[in-house]
């Protein structure tokens, strides 16, 4: 196996990890601040992708499509927060699970109703299509490289937002002490809506960005949602840093496992059986990673100790 292939797969892993981070960051923020487990986060991802596909289809502009994805998902998030989620902050986890599960059903079938069951396609913009040659002679799709760049930029922005701005200070205060920030005169219900919309917007953006390299279809959100849960369990709930590290670990493990495990098994098995066993095991690799983290640190790499 060539080092070029390895480098390419590492880049693929990074790319999928960074997109996962966009999902996981919103989830972990929402849990950290409001204590809510949101299964419908994957629906917001899907809404972003569909909004992008619809706008790109109508206008032909990828940039407008991204803006639409962000706005549509953030608005959907804000509305859902104000109508349903708000009633669940003090409810038991079971209620949160059920209500957000109900939201998935409504969003998924509702989208199928409007857009039909066939996948939509979102084209990579002209300017970003085609491969580029990286140092060392690696041919790599420019769009995927742009995804890595965009994701890193969002991560940096998120860091800046939470660490350096007034609203970020309020958000962090909200994680630690709700009464305190209410006492300081911050309108907590507005803050919650804002955080929820921010998380939703990130999910929508991720949906649109990934939608261009996969197909845009109903049900696309939930597998990503569950991967994002794995990320959060590994990184520690409520920690954005944990979400970042966890997302990269999961992205790399998933991508590299799929390539290397079958190869590894070929060393001591018949090629046919090796491919089968290897790919079956590769599909479990990230969950095995999660189990190991759980055994080592039950509350995740950067989580508060339980």
């Amino acid at each position, binding site marked *: 196996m060539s080092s070029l292939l390895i480098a390419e797969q590492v880049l693929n892993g990074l790319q999928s990890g960074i997109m996962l981070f966009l999902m996981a960051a919103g989830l972990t923020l929402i849990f950290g601040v409001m204590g809510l487990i949101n*299964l419908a986060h994957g629906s917001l991802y899907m809404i972003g992708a569909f909004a992008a596909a619809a706008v790109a289809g109508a206008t032909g502009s990828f940039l407008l499509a991204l803006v639409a994805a962000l706005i549509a998902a953030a608005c959907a998030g804000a509305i859902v927060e104000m109508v349903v989620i708000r009633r669940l902050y003090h409810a038991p*986890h079971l209620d949160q699970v059920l209500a957000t599960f109900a939201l998935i059903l409504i969003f*998924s*079938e509702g989208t199928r109703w409007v857009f039909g069951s066939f996948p939509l396609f979102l084209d990579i913009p002209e300017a970003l299509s085609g491969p580029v040659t990286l140092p060392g002679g690696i041919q790599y799709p420019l769009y995927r490289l742009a995804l890595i760049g965009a994701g890193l930029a969002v991560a940096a922005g998120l860091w800046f937002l939470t660490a350096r701005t007034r609203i970020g200070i309020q958000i962090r205060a909200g994680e630690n002490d709700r009464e305190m920030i209410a006492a300081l005169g911050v309108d907590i219900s507005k803050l919650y809506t804002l955080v929820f919309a921010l998380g939703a917007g990130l999910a929508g953006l991720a949906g649109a960005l990934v939608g261009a390299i996969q197909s845009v279809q109903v049900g696309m959100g939930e597998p990503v949602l569950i991967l994002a849960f794995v990320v959060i*369990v590994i990184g520690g709930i409520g920690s954005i840093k944990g979400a970042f590290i966890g997302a990269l670990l999961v992205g790399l493990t998933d991508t590299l496992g799929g390539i290397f495990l079958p190869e590894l098994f070929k060393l001591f098995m018949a090629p046919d059986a090796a491919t089968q066993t290897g790919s*079956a095991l590769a599909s479990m690799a990230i*969950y095995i990673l*999660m189990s190991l983290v759980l055994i080592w640190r039950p509350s995740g790499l950067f989580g508060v100790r339980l």
Partner: protein
Amino acid sequence: MIGERYLNLLVLAALMAVPLWALAADEPFTITLATRAVILALAAVGLNIALGMGGLVSLGHAVFFGLGGYAMGILASHAQSYTPLELFGLTIEGTKSMPVIWLTAIIISALAAWGIGLLSLRTSGVYFIMITLAFGQMFYYFAISWSAYGGEDGLSIYVRNGFPGLNTLVPIEYFGLCFAVLCLALLLNARLQGSPFGLALNAARQVPARVETVGLDPMRLKLLAFVLSGAITGLAGALFADLNRFVSPTMFSWQLSGELIVLIVIGGVGRLMGPVIGACLFVTLEHWLGGITEFWHVFLGAILLLIVLFARGGIVGLLTGKEGPHV
């Protein structure tokens, strides 16, 4: 308002009457629907032990349902092709005998529940939910990539497996068999509720610190509840596979895990008959709304939202006017 005991008997009687009526009216499809409700109820009765008594919000119970299903699929497919199953140097003959398949399903699911429980119970709350969901997905993808048993396409079994003394291919006989298994599981559940284990488990859900200070280990209690729960759901999976004569990775899907919780909540969490009422209603809705519109899940979602926000005790809570356990 109605006493819970009467309600329970009423539900069981109705559940038995519907297929008998269908038999008289020559509507075999209704019998199949009723069988489907009974099997889903059995799966949810299993989950209700973990959820209602142990307070464990498991979003991965489809794992056990799927394992039960694949236990049936794998054993029966080997019997069907007359090839033994080679596993770790052991040679296992396939079988078409339900009791053997059921036992296998129970053992495999219990083992899986033990492993998953051991890992997931190191945490609690939201972590537990996410981890069980993740393990569910792991089995789902594993089933998809495991091409030896059909991979994504699943596995068809041509003849229904046998049970001594019954012709399982006759819909009403298979219904009776499933119904009997459900009744046994309900009896076990009822005994469990009033047993020392049930008392300790219920307390472990409400006040784990208290359970520790009387010298019991809440984690071990919950783990055992999870294993029992998984085993029953696994058995339901085997019955479900036999009903459809087909297994596929969708038996492992997270939607199914979610739907099992939904069944329980519609009926009433921690209530003996909650899962049964929930399953009957679910199958009825699925059939009736599904006949009206392809997008019936939208309405299911709306109903569910209303129940969560306004009727926490589910149907049993509404009918008996009594609060159930809090999870």
